[in-house]
């Protein structure tokens, strides 16, 4: 680094000062005064430079230090200043630098030649023009499919482009497949989304209950944060309630194997015991809880219910009754009941896909919140429910920016006139620009896209960013592959590598990824995390956010009226310090100014309504992420919030209230305890298809493996997907270790090797298949039934049969 300290300060001040959004509304102009910390130039380490970034993978939100030399990432280290991971990473995190360097990175825009059906290189100008003209043909038949891996500015730009620009609400993210039920669970329980607790609870809990959760493989750093306490001499008890034995089970004190879907009955059984033994927390329940049941017709917020009616309904969920449904012994169920009846124990419930990818996902989320509320195990350090996310910014970009078909930024919804008006005002748009009708949720969006226009498929053109629906959607034959026969449909895909989605793409846009661009993520504990670009993207790969802005600008040139605000300015106008417009839609000028900072500062105005105040961009630059609401204290310091709705921890709770659910759906500062009975799932094993199929991830691979399968160390450890089966089932159908079997459902089939007593051990009658392998896609087999409220599909259970392929291998 040859730059002197003075030059550095000059450059930093220049860049920090240069971002502000032009608008007539004074409330919108981002602060242009900023004090950056003065840092002594550190000693020089030849070659390698280090800077912070959040990890690219799961929702834990670890920070890594990225070592860069000659414009390439050459090393990674766990960030010791990060509160989430305290210097530790998992194997994916340690190898995250390699994801940039798979030899088949997409480096130029590609257009499918209709005659040869091959993708052929075209120029960026041409690509943006084609995309814009295609949208212009029928803006109302266009859909934007995004991601919980979108950075916050990327998601915000897409959101503004669709709902504010095109007046089209067909924008939905892959997070619909991942945590939509957690959202509806929080909304219907507390009236506002996102976990009230934080990871600090994991350091204090006496007992951690894992509801269908395998953090040893999926959130390893959080899991270590819990179990490593034992090495320090602390006692923490793990209770694993799940449908197969996992690495997490191995470290658990109690493993309760349940029949799939019966978590509903188990949660009800806990509450039933608390009430029948009169050992629930009466004070907490009376002061802070209402009771709620389904309305007719069913709605997310339901209808009121008296406590007596609730008690009458839940009465039958005795341990003996639930043992028959769930397969968990009555004595284990009593153990859970006793645990929640003990006010001296601090209990954390953890869950992720097991409860969210569930056709009764909203219901089971409600119930687990209910168990904690009625028992009073809520809102104390180490005592409360904690929902985890699978993607790095499912919370930040999807839940907070509201990139869902029904939502607007900052917890607003399109149906509410007041919310639309607020957005129109903040965006400086003409009145009634925003469409009041919710758009299509993910499954519906792809159904419409894969249905011929002639028979009612009213989505013609789709833009997919930062996700791989060709592999991650359920029942892919119906929801994705059907597109191959429909010539009138046009699929635009921004990607970093060729994958299942680009195989059907008509236009492929090469994207910059992770530290090749500026970004901001929001993790599972409300922590907003910022990083800077550290290396240049390869070839002509460019930022997703730039693509959205460039397409929007081209649409404006083509005459789309929605791309202008009330004053005739481009909706993504970004000004420099002197108020002159920076042509950010031109790539060569995109990094003249920090567009991330400009968009985030604009977005920040939206976050106050629901008391989700994100920190100013420049505060995030200095920190390893901050947990909202971030509020300035009397001394001018920005303070994060660890426990929401808790007096003393949350500034928005009024003095003397203790707990205050200030966004309560019943407007009385109370949370809702829901009556949610057990009902069978839509598909269960029968004579024809006698096995349960569960799908999920493995430690080494993240989601569809587009990134991790290109990392040598990860791909070699787990090169191929497999089928986990119980040893007695394998013996019964005559297959041994490594034998090929066909797993077949009513929707599709797949040939896989069997792994017995391997990574996980399912009980009899149940099999498990990881979904990372693009060459062996288990989502050809899964079911696309979804939760009625969240519209999130259930990847965790459907009925299959297993057919041996070969006779036993020679030993």
């Amino acid at each position, binding site marked *: 680094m040859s730059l002197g300290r003075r030059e550095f300060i000059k450059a930093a001040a*220049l860049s920090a000062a240069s971002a502000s959004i032009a608008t007539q509304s004074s409330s919108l102009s981002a602060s242009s005064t900023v004090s950056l910390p003065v840092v002594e130039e550190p000693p020089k380490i030849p070659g*390698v430079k280090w800077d912070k970034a959040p990890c690219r993978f799961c929702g834990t939100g670890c920070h890594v230090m990225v070592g*860069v030399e000659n414009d390439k990432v050459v090393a990674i*280290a766990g960030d*010791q200043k990060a509160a989430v991971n305290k210097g530790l990473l998992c194997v994916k995190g340690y190898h995250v630098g390699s994801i940039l*360097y798979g030899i088949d990175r997409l480096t130029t825009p590609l257009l499918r030649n209709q005659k040869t059906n091959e993708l052929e290189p075209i120029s960026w100008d041409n690509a943006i023009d084609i995309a814009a003209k295609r949208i212009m043909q029928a803006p109302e038949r266009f859909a934007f499919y995004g991601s919980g891996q979108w950075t916050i500015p990327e998601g915000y730009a897409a959101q503004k482009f669709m709902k504010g620009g095109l007046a089209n609400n067909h924008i939905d993210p892959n997070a619909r497949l991942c945590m939509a039920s957690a959202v509806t669970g929080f909304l219907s329980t507390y009236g506002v989304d996102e976990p009230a607790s934080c990871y600090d609870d994991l350091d204090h809990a006496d007992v951690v209950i894992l509801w269908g959760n395998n953090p040893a493989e999926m959130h390893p750093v959080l899991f270590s944060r819990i179990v490593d306490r034992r*090495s320090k001499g602390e006692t923490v008890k793990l209770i694993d309630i799940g449908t197969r034995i996992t690495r997490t089970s191995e470290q658990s004190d109690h493993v309760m194997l349940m029949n799939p879907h019966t978590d509903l009955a188990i949660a009800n059984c806990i509450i039933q015991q608390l009430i029948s033994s009169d050992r629930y927390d009466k004070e907490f329940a009376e002061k802070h809880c209402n009771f709620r049941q389904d309305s007719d017709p069913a709605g997310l917020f339901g209808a009121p219910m008296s406590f007596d009616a609730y008690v009458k309904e839940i009465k039958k969920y005795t341990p003996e009754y639930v043992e028959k449904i769930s397969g968990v012994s009555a004595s284990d169920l009593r153990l859970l009941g006793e645990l929640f009846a003990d006010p001296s124990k601090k209990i954390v419930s953890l869950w992720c896909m097991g409860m969210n990818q569930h056709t009764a996902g909203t219901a089971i989320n409600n119930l687990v919140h209910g168990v904690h509320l009625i028992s009073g195990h809520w809102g104390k350090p180490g005592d409360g429910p904690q929902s985890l996310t699978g993607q790095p910014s499912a919370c930040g970009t999807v839940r907070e920016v509201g990139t869902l078909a029904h939502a607007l930024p900052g917890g607003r919804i399109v149906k509410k006139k007041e919310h639309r008006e607020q957005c129109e005002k903040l965006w400086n748009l003409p009145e009634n620009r925003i469409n009041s009708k919710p758009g299509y949720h993910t499954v519906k969006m792809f159904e419409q896209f894969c249905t011929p226009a002639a028979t009612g498929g009213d989505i013609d053109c789709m833009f997919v960013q930062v996700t791989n629906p060709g592999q991650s959607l359920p029942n892919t034959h119906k929801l994705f592959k059907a597109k191959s026969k429909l010539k009138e449909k046009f699929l635009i895909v921004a990607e970093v590598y060729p994958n299942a989605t680009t195989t059907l793409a008509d236009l492929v846009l090469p994207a910059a990824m992770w530290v090749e661009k500026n970004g901001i993520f929001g993790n599972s504990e409300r922590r907003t995390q910022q990083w800077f670009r550290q290396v240049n993207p390869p070839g002509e790969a460019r930022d997703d956010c730039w693509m959205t802005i460039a397409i929007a600008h081209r649409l404006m040139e083509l005459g789309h009226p929605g791309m202008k605000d009330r004053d005739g300015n481009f909706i993504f106008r970004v000004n420099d310090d002197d108020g002159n417009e920076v042509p950010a839609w031109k790539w060569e000028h995109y990094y*003249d100014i920090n567009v991330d900072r400009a968009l985030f500062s604009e977005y920040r105005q939206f976050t106050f309504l629901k008391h989700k105040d994100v920190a100013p961009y420049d505060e995030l630059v200095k920190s390893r992420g901050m947990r909202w609401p971030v509020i300035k204290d009397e001394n001018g310091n920005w303070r994060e919030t660890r426990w929401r709705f808790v007096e003393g921890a949350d500034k928005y709770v009024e003095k003397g209230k203790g707990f205050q659910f200030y966004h309560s759906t019943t407007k009385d500062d109370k949370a809702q305890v829901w009556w949610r009975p057990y009902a069978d799932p839509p598909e269960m094993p029968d004579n024809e298809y006698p096995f349960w199929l569960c799908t999920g991830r493995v430690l080494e691979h993240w989601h569809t493996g587009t990134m991790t399968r290109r990392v040598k160390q990860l791909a070699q450890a787990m090169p191929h997907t497999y089928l986990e089966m119980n040893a007695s089932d394998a013996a019964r159908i005559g297959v041994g270790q490594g034998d090929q079997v066909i797993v077949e459902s009513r929707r599709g089939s797949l040939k896989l090797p069997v792994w017995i007593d391997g*990574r996980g051990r399912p009980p009899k009658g149940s099999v498990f298949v990881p979904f990372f392998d693009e060459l062996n896609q288990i989502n050809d087999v899964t079911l696309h039934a979804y939760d009625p409220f969240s519209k999130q599909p259930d990847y965790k259970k459907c009925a299959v049969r297993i057919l041996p392929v070969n006779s036993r291998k020679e030993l």
Partner: protein
Amino acid sequence: MSGPQTPKDGHSDHLPQYNHGRLGHIILICCIATAFIGFIAGIRGEQKNTNQQHNPNHQVTHQQQDQYPLAPRYEMIRNISLVNQTHLKNPKSPPKNEPIQIVVGTAQQKSEALDQRAELRAYQGAPPVIPHKIDQRRAESCMSCHSQGLKLEQVIAPQMSHEYFNNCTQCHVESTNFILNLRSTAALSQNDFTGKTTIAESTRAWEGAPPTMPHATHMRENCISCHGPTGKSGLRSSHPYRQNCTQCHAQSAVLEQRLSHDESSFPLRMKRKPWELPND
């Protein structure tokens, strides 16, 4: 007795029972057999040496794996040739009370040791992959060798370099799929990430001064792991009896993350043109 009945008959104390002609034959056969075994052993030794060429991107192949003592599956025991373990017969493990030998490694040994380390790591500081089969579920089996460290001839099970964590497989994965022998059906893992095998150079203020540490100590707090008696030749300390390493060997504040590079490393990050390489 008429001829050798058991291998024991070849022993010299049975000699008087044989006539000289047969004895000559037997000695000849023994010599040929010994020469043959020696030849094969020699070849194997050479093969191993070639396998250990010092290519940092070298993959741990299955052949190499075969040199480690794998327990056979029960159904294989009938047919198994125990040739895999021949080099472990009568291994010389250092007697408990023998004084620690002081070995000063050569520059070549050090370079070889570093290359061997690089084979199992994506870059300096990455957690090494595991070059052998593992128990898929429990940490106890890892600890049986890696808690104290183990050295049996060429086979080293290094002592853990960091404090005990309960979940070994969080960071360490197998170098290949040993159990099902799964292979990807496509060469998807091709990747030209080039990790740094040396993040920083160790420096000495003058000839004879203690060298500074060329790597971070986070997750490598236990110096004994590499520099102790079970470490590789070339990395071992010349003075293992000294207990307080940091007394003389200085750490790097930047590598230890005590000094942040954040603000100064990338001053042009907002103004840099995409086509420009970062200033240096």
